[in-house]
């Protein structure tokens, strides 16, 4: 094995630039596309200005609520600035949250909580208004409940002395729990990682497609070396051609997996998106084995590259793994042959994996026969 590693290192030394490039390509391409898509998404959002006349827990909550709307880019500014920007159409609409907002909400006093401005080109005005109204309703409702609970408590001389804050906190906790339940249910169907702010392109879908391409292109060594007369000398060496190819398959797979691990850590740090290591290992094994076996079918690297690009393109389009989430034109039948399935959904007992295992077995049998 030591000798085998040494010979592979000698080969890698001659092509370290392209080796390094293709090892890092999936990571770099994923980061670039994700960040570019993020900027694009931001640009496409509707700019809304919010003016805060008081800083309380309630106003902070409202601000968070508006911020979390996927189609809105919210900025906090002073009233003068906001109106100036609105006039220049740099803002779509402006909402001024008046002083005493928190108190008025608590006391179910819904007059003059907020003043809103819009221009004749406003677009987000109505949805944001709806959102604020629904928030105010929810909060005033909560306050009302709290008062009623306190009243009931006093009327019936209850032992427990409920504090207003306590009731509000409790009601929020209940709401949170119910929300979580809802999210859980929707997870079950989509089986993709969804975050509060959905990305235009799913990170692991992107990476899967890029790593598939990089793996195919890195395994061009099989095409090149099998074609080379130099491998004829293996007949007069300690290694058979089969073991030479297998050892190098293992070495490539290990190096690719190390690159995968680096990718996982960096993607986690940058985008807080995680992928199961078990899925990753299985995905890596299958695509490496598939690329290794697939490369055996070619004698020309040019044709091999062309077919590889075409295949990856087809997988990208048909699986919909790396396409904008909304534009998912995903074909269900493709799931069973999708090479990305082990990575994205953890499904690794399907037509695809069975085909790879079968091809591997055939390859081993055929080679053994040749050497007998």
């Amino acid at each position, binding site marked *: 094995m030591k000798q085998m590693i040494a*010979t592979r290192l000698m080969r890698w030394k001659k092509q370290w630039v392209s080796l390094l490039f293709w090892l890092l390509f999936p990571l770099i391409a994923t980061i670039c596309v994700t960040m570019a898509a993020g900027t694009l998404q931001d640009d496409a959002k509707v700019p809304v200005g919010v003016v805060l006349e008081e800083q309380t827990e309630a106003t902070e909550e409202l601000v968070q609520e508006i911020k979390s709307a996927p189609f809105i880019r919210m900025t906090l500014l002073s009233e003068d600035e906001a109106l100036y920007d609105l006039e220049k159409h740099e803002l779509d609409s402006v909402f001024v949250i008046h002083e005493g907002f928190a108190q008025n909400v608590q006391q179910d006093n819904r007059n003059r909580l907020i003043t809103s401005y819009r221009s004749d080109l406003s677009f987000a005005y109505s949805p944001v208004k709806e959102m604020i109204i629904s928030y105010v309703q929810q909060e005033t409702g909560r306050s009302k409940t709290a008062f009623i609970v306190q009243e009931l408590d006093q009327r019936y001389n209850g032992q427990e002395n409920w504090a207003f804050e306590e009731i509000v906190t409790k009601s929020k906790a209940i709401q949170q729990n119910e929300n979580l339940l809802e999210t859980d249910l929707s997870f079950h169907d989509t089986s993709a990682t969804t975050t509060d702010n959905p990305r235009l392109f799913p990170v692991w879908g992107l990476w899967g497609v890029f790593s598939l391409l990089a793996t195919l292109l890195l395994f061009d060594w099989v095409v090149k070396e099998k074609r080379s*007369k130099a491998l004829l000398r293996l*007949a007069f*060496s300690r290694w058979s051609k089969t073991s030479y190819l297998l050892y190098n398959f293992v070495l490539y797979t290990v190096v690719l997996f190390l690159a995968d691990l680096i990718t996982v850590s960096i993607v986690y740090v940058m985008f807080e998106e995680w992928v199961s290591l078990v899925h990753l290992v299985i995905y890596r094994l299958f695509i490496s084995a598939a690329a290794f076996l697939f490369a055996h079918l070619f004698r020309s690297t040019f044709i091999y590259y062309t077919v590889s690009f075409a295949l990856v393109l087809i997988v990208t389009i048909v699986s919909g793994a790396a396409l904008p989430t909304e534009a998912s034109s995903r074909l269900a039948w493709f799931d069973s042959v999708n090479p990305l399935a082990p990575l994205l959904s953890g499904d690794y007992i399907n037509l695809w994996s069975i085909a790879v295992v079968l091809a591997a077995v055939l390859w081993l049998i055929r080679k053994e026969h040749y050497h007998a």
Partner: protein
Amino acid sequence: MLEVQALSKAYGKKQILKNLSFSVKPGEVIGLVGENGAGKSTLLQILATLSNPTAGTVMLNGESYQVNLKKTRRQIGFVPQDIALWDEFTVKENMIFFEKLSWKHKNGDELRKLCYDMKLSKWNESVKKLSGGMKRKLNIAVTLIHEPNLLLLDEPTAGVDLKSRKEIGAYLSNLAKSRGKMILYTSHDMDEIMQLCDRIYCIGEDPFYYDVLQKYGERPVQL
């Protein structure tokens, strides 16, 4: 000692080698001649265990090829008709690469000496930039790393200039005489064959070769 008995080879219906029998003793250099397509390369590949005969047996030092393939191969060095080297590697890197895969361990100095003995001095030049003759020399040097007893060379001197041809010839002849190696090689150069070989085997029935060889005053053995 290499013993070939009643060896035949056919590709489908096409009979290439018919019932060949001959032997090679240690220290002998044998020249194989014959027209293009006569089956010289085919014979060398069978002797190198890379191809199976349709009929007949081959024995090396009393042991049949079929008995222990690995052990047989350790004693064989095969220089293919094509250059079997890594183009992007230097002379040094090619020697080291194949040494690592070889049964025999050789250090850098020994590898270098192997090249120098064959008058191949461009140690750090990449194979891409070597002349045709230099490539042929390296093609042979790499084959010699594991010190084979039976050396099979398929047109080792094709496209090599006169001086390099002499150098390769002298080296091979010395290898046979001083180390008792068995050498079989093919060539289309009759002068070279005459000078170098202890015996000449002619494959095929083309009378042309007999005429030519007769003019040299040599008695070719027809296989």
